[in-house]
């Protein structure tokens, strides 16, 4: 029987633009099914849009931000949107809303906002780091 491995997922492609969040979710389910561990999901670049609480697709389509947040919550997996990527792209939590004096916030739970240090930590601590980029 193989050892249990820890994975960090880095998602850089946005939903409804790339397939990255969909592929990553299928792989994530298979990682857990194989008995491995997901240490953290890190959203970078365009990938931060996966953490939007306002994405509202037609009702006959999958809502990838919702599916991802349900998966993360169920399995108690840490999920972080890079602060530099998120703020430029208009993904903010209540703390940044207050700091920038914005009229609202739109970060979906359980995603948190943090720096690239979390990615560096994943590189050091996880056995595997998988990247899910856009195809263009």
């Amino acid at each position, binding site marked *: 029987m193989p050892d249990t491995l820890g994975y960090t997922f880095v998602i850089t492609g946005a939903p409804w633009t790339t397939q990255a969040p969909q592929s990553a979710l299928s792989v994530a389910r298979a990682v857990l099914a194989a008995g491995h561990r997901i240490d953290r999901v890190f959203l970078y670049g365009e990938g931060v849009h996966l953490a939007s609480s306002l994405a509202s697709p037609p009702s006959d389509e999958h809502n990838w931000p919702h599916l991802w947040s349900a998966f993360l919550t169920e399995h108690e997996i840490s999920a972080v949107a890079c602060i530099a990527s998120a703020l430029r792209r208009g993904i903010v939590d209540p703390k940044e809303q207050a700091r920038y004096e914005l009229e609202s916030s739109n970060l979906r739970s359980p995603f948190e906002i943090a720096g690239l240090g979390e990615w560096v930590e994943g590189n050091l601590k996880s056995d595997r780091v*998988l990247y899910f980029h856009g*195809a263009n």
Partner: protein
Amino acid sequence: MTDTTLHITNKAPDHPRFRYCLSAFKEGDALILMEDAVLALTDQEQALPSTSYALSADAQARAVANRAPRQQLIDYNDFVQLTATYSRIINW
């Protein structure tokens, strides 16, 4: 430093990075084609290494699964197994 490597790419065969990926392939390495990269299974202009795999779900969506060798198609569980086997992975 010269361990074997699992190369994973989601780029279509006409994407410049697809060519970089193939040019980086060494003996003993493996290649997974996912998303748009599965189109390489039927690309007449580019040969693939013999240890190439393609995600079945992506190949079925794009209707290339039925025109490609069966043994190259893998599911997400196989994908994870390969990432567990190879300690060095490059996502192109």
